[in-house]
Every structure is written in C-alpha cells, then in structure tokens.
C-alpha cells in the first residue's frame, strides 16, 4: 500500500495532529526550506510522528538511514521525492569531501525551491556533520531551516545500561578526538567514547577499519583509570526484537576486544567526587530546601558503579 501524501493525511490520529501542524508550517514557509529529521537507531518504534509527517509532505526527501526497514518506509512515505544520499560515499574517499558534497546537494534541492526533508538515522544532529552544516549554510542564505530531535545511540545507551547522566555527570567524546586533542576527563563522572571502532580513520571503509592505533587510546585511558577498571562495550539494537550488545571487560583488555565501527565504550566513574564543604555549607544557608533534597544523601555519597568487578 502506498501511503497518502500531502493533503490526504488520515493514517493515525496521533500522526494526524503532527501532520496537520507540519502542513500549516509549510503554508507559512517561503518556497525552499529545509527540515532535518531523525529516524532513530531502531526504526520500528523510534520514529516520531512529526518526523513521519515531514517525510510525507516534503517535495524532496533525502535520506541516509541505517537499515533497509527505514529505507523501505521512506520509499512508501514519499515515493516521488525520496532520494538516497548513499551514493556520495566511496571506498577510501575522505569523509569531509563526502560531507561537503552532501551539503551542496541538499542545499541545491532547497535552492530549487523545494521543501526539502533530510532524514538521517539516529538523532540527525548527533554525530552528524553534514546536517548541521546544511542548516547553518541554509540559514546564512536566509533560507528557513530547522532540525527535529530524534533518538540517538546515546539515548539508547542510557536506557539499556540504566544510566542517568544526571547522577554522576557524563562526558561524551568521539574517540579519535579524545585521543589527539588531549581531552580531559573527570574520572568521577561517566565517560562515553564514540566510534572507537573507527579510531584514527578519516576515510570511508566499507569493510571496517584498521585499529592498529587502539593501543594508544588504551594507554591514555590507563593513565586516567586503574587498568582493571571495568568498562562496557555497547552497541544499540538496530532491529526490532533484538537485544543490544553489552560486553563488560577491564580497560586493559580493550585492545583484545571485538570492535566494530558502531561500538561505543562506556566508562563508569572510577571514584567518588570530592565535595566542596565550604560551598556546601553556603548552599545550605542560602537554600534551606536543599536540606530536604540532601537528606537522600545523594550529594554527599553518590553510589559508584562499574568499578572493580561490576
């Protein structure tokens, strides 16, 4: 069945509201606009109704998605306007060049006067260079451009590993960036390193990446954490009904781990923070309500997770 397009939005009640709102926004937009949406990490269940609505009503629907289910859905939602951006990739081609060409292509469609929707897997603005650049340049040209949030791999990680970034804080780095730019981490907070399976690679490789630089990263981590500190390798589930990949191992064993480009490393806090008692007392004096919140002891002794054999 080919789903209806603009003007015939009668699929689902909840979707209808978003679609009507999107339609109204379209009416108020000048010709040629850009909307960037995410399809989630797992298409079944993580697509927002507003993203579906925009994909359906767009004149051009450019997409870069992580699974054939999303691609199938996009082709159904907008059979006339759907166009994959996959062709911009080539073996050994520098990613920056690919992204530049993508951005130019996207803006080309917008400049032609089309309502252009770009759909990317996950959150379209998280670890996604060309989408941000396309929006930035569109706005610089006076073109209406906007991004809608989607469900990112980090969102999946928080849910699957049961981590609340508000408890210990959370630092998040791209692995190569962490290594070469001397990023400083706080071992009392959670740390997430992305794309460890593509460490030190700046080109597209269809069959995976050379990881001979991995020991450099492990050496660096071992200067910050005890070598037996337990970390977690994580891969979000992409397909419905499947479980995420979660592997716990000591930090020193990372070089022997089975990594792929979508593997993420979650590093739990290694020690407790040192409270500033002076500030703590000043806070108590100024904010009596804090006493009640503090009665849970959360601010004084946050639980440690992931240390030792955890």
């Amino acid at each position, binding site marked *: 069945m080919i*789903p209806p397009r603009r003007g015939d939005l009668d*699929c*689902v009640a*909840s*979707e209808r509201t978003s679609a009507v709102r999107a339609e109204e926004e379209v009416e108020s937009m000048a010709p040629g606009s850009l909307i960037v949406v995410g399809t989630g990490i797992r*298409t*079944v*269940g993580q*697509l927002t*109704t507003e993203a*579906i609505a925009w994909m359906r009503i767009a004149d051009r629907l450019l997409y*870069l*998605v*992580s*699974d*054939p*289910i*999303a*691609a*199938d*859905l996009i082709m*159904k*939602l907008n059979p006339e306007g759907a166009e994959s951006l*996959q062709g911009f*990739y080539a073996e050994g081609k520098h*990613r*920056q060049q690919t*992204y530049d060409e993508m951005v130019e292509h996207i803006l080309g469609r917008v400049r032609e006067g089309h309502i252009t929707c770009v759909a*990317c*897997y*996950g959150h379209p603005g998280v*670890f*996604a*260079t*060309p989408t941000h650049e396309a929006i930035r340049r569109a706005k610089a040209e006076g073109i209406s451009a906007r991004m809608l949030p989607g469900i990112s791999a980090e969102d999946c990680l928080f849910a699957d590993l049961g981590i609340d970034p508000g408890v210990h804080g959370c630092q998040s780095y*791209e692995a*190569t*960036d962490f290594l*070469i*730019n001397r990023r400083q981490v706080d071992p009392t907070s959670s740390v997430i390193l*992305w*794309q460890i399976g*593509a460490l030190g690679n*700046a080109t*597209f*490789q*269809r069959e*995976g990446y050379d990881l001979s630089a991995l020991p450099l990263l492990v050496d660096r981590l071992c200067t910050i954490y005890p070598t037996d500190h337990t970390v977690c390798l994580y891969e979000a*589930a*992409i*397909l*419905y*009904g*499947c*479980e995420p990949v979660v592997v716990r191992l000591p930090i020193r064993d990372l070089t022997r781990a089975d990594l*792929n*480009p*979508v593997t993420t490393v979650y590093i739990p806090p290694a020690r407790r923070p040192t409270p500033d008692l002076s500030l703590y007392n000043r806070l108590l004096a100024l904010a009596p309500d804090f006493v009640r919140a503090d009665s849970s002891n959360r601010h004084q002794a946050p639980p440690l997770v992931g240390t030792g054999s955890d």
Partner: protein
Amino acid sequence: MASAELRAFLSGLAADPERLGVFIRDPDAVLAASDLDEDDKVAVLSGDPAALQARLHDSEITPFPSILQFAIMLIVQFRPAFPQAFSQAFSQAFSQTFSQTFSQTFSQTFSQAFSQAFAQAFAQAFAQASGQVLPSASSDVNADIGDAGAPADHPEDGT
C-alpha cells in the same frame, strides 16, 4: 531467500503506532494474519540480529548494504586541532627566533656602526679641537676609543 514482504511488514509497524501496539501485545496473532512466509515469521520472533539481517538483505531483491555499512556512513568527522596547534606553535617559535635573531643582529650591527662612526667623528672633532694644543694626543685618543668601542670582538656584549 530474503523477503521484501518482511521489510514491508516491519516498515508498516514503524509508521503505524496502533499497529505496533497490537503487535507488541500479540505478535503471534499479527504474524499469523500477515502474508509473511514461515522463515520470515521465525526470524521476526527469533530476536537474532543475524537471522533478521539475512532475511532483510538480499542482493537478488535489491542491492542493499549491510546494516554495519550503513551505520558507519554518517560517522562524525573528527576535528583534530593540529592545524591550529601547529600554527600557534609555529608563530610562537617564529616570533621568538625572529626577535632573538633580530635583536642580536640589530644590536651587533648598530653597536658596531655606532661605535665606528662615533669613534671616527669623535676622533676627528677631538683632533680638530685639540690638535693645535696637543698635537701628539690624537693618536692616543683614537687608540683608547678604538679599544673601548670594539663590540665586534665581543659580540656577547651586544646581546
């Protein structure tokens, strides 16, 4: 053989929350009512990513990259700070070296030229002024000034 019907079935769930809700509540019933073949139904219920991928990716139906290949497509472009760090280090080193060299050369040249010119002018003036009174003194004065104003022999003085 993989199934285009399986892709259609799952993408149908993705676009329709009501249908997805029915599937979550009773997957067996929804699958039984679908037109999926038995292998697809088994794959859907297996929870096995490899089995599902095998059913979803069939080059005979459509040349579709594997999920992993897709997943690495939008990989973020890391931004090494090397160019910035390099230019900072270079400009620092350059300015330091330049200022050192310049000050060395300048002071050396200046003091040499100045002392030479000064000595010559002073000697000339002194000789002119005092020549008639102390005709034999000019050579001594010249010699004294020449020794004192010889930074070229002691380049470290100018630094």
